């Protein structure tokens, strides 16, 4: 290989080594490393094991905090839940799509995982059940009503199910009795009361989990729908927060229990904890953290070509420690 001569730059170029060579058994080093790493792994696994908390179900949710389940399911029906207003890849609602400057990147590929929360989370699972007459009648009444009427019933239900104060604290007006009966303040809900009653009933029996998982067929490995529904409620977020896994608790890199988790995500997670990402940029924090990380990663990869940055090792002088034996022999006294 030939190369055009160019000016020598100490942080880019290296003087070919013409000094002494010493025996170095790479294969032996590898074998010893394998033994040591293997033993260390066995030691750590034996001492600390690994976390394994069982996955949560919608049945767990509807049993542990049924009023949150009912209130959330109602927002899936009237289209005001987090997922219902998410935007691509789930739907075309634009209100919450994050932006980089004027650009909404999720719109480039658009809706690739279509989710209609009213149909997918409420109406289709209920229709798949061998429902009693009251449920079939309620579903038929709801379907035969105009979209405006459907919306009005569902909006009334959502409005009366909870009260949110100025600080964002939620008070549940809906109550669920120990036998699963849903009790709402009086209002004009049409068939939605019955629909929510049976939605709660199939959730508490575990049938809603099954309907959401097997809705697309017997064999499935895709948990998008039940995961999105579960994550829409306050209960799931509360369980995560109680494990110190919230987004504002460095949760991206943590795992349950006292385990190191994905410690290598510390920089990515850190940006979520500091201004302006968690203040004025909050509405677009996710995409702005990603853009920041992409830029920093590109800089890391291109350090060899960036004057100044590639000089940092020489300024830090840690190399003098690494090669101290070499420099003892080669430093020339002034």
């Amino acid at each position, binding site marked *: 290989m030939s190369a055009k001569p160019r000016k020598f730059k100490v942080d880019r170029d290296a003087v070919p080594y013409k*000094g002494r060579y010493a025996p170095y058994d*790479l294969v032996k080093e590898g074998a010893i*490393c*394998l033994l040591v790493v293997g033993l260390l792994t066995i030691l750590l696994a034996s001492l600390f094991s690994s976390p394994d908390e*069982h996955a949560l179900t919608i049945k767990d949710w509807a049993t542990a905090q049924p009023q949150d389940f009912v209130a959330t399911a109602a927002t899936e029906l009237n289209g005001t839940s987090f997922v219902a207003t998410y935007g691509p890849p789930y739907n075309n609602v634009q209100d919450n799509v994050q932006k980089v400057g004027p650009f909404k990147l999720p719109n480039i*590929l658009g809706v690739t995982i279509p989710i209609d929360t009213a149909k997918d989370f409420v109406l289709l699972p209920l229709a798949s059940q061998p429902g009693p007459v009251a449920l079939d009648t309620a579903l038929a009444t709801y379907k035969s009503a105009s979209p405006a009427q459907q919306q009005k019933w569902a909006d009334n239900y959502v409005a009366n199910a909870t009260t949110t104060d100025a600080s964002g604290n939620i008070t549940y007006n809906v109550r669920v009795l120990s036998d699963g009966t849903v009790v709402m303040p009086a209002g004009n809900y049409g068939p939605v009361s019955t629909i929510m009653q049976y939605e709660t009933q199939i959730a508490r029996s575990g049938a809603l989990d099954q309907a959401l998982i097997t809705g697309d067929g017997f064999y499935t490995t895709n948990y998008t729908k039940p*995961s999105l529904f579960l994550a829409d409620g306050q209960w799931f977020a509360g369980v995560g927060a109680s494990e110190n896994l919230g987004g504002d608790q460095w949760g991206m890199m943590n795992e349950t229990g006292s385990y190191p988790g994905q410690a290598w995500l510390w920089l990515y997670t850190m940006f979520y904890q500091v201004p302006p990402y968690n203040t004025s940029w909050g509405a677009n924090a996710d995409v702005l953290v990603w853009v920041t990380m992409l830029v920093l990663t590109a800089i890391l990869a291109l350090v060899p070509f960036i004057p100044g940055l590639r000089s940092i090792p020489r300024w830090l002088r840690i190399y003098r420690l690494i090669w101290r034996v070499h420099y003892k022999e080669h430093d020339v006294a002034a």
Partner: protein
Amino acid sequence: MTEPEMVEPVTTTAGHPEDATMWTARIRRRVVEALPPDRMLPDRQPAYVASWIYVFGMVTITAMIVVILTGCILALKGPQWWHESGFGHYINSLHLWSVEIFFFAMVVHLWGKFFMAAWRGNRSLTWITGVVTFLASIVTAFTGYLSQTNFDSQWISTQAKDGINSTGGGAFFNVLNFGQMLMWHIALMPVALIALVGLHVLMVRRRGVVPPLPAKGEKVPEMTSEAVAS
């Protein structure tokens, strides 16, 4: 019909002169020229290769071997096994802790190479493949966390979806699709990672270990043609 001419089997890199234009012979020559065996597995190293920091590249590779072996045992019985079996849980623990050692060693290796400015002397591509390998390792570990089929998987997937969806990446990389994440974790990413590590190691062996920065009072050449050509 005439009998094919009997010739000696190839025993040298050059091969038979009459075969020199064959694709096979050309590739063999190029490979052996680029990656001569004595450089691939040298038994001597420059005297300056005498610090513990040099061990961490090898520790990273050996930790990856333990990760792959324990992952293979988990794969034998499927993704649910380790919830039901004490032995399976122990294998999962070995898998987890070997991953932690892998990342620890890799990060020390990366910082060590940074402090040595190891990209010098036409080694920038070695540095870049190292950074890409680090990124690929993060994706591999991340998809592993999503494949645990427990609360950690549920939580991490529902949290991570917002970041990935905000970039548009969620359109084809659905972190809530367990089957897709498992395939990335046990098929696509390991293949990519092994290829990247292989490429990285070949580059290290081809270029050799970066020489030290100039010593005090050491004169450096004005031009670099010798240093750039390898």
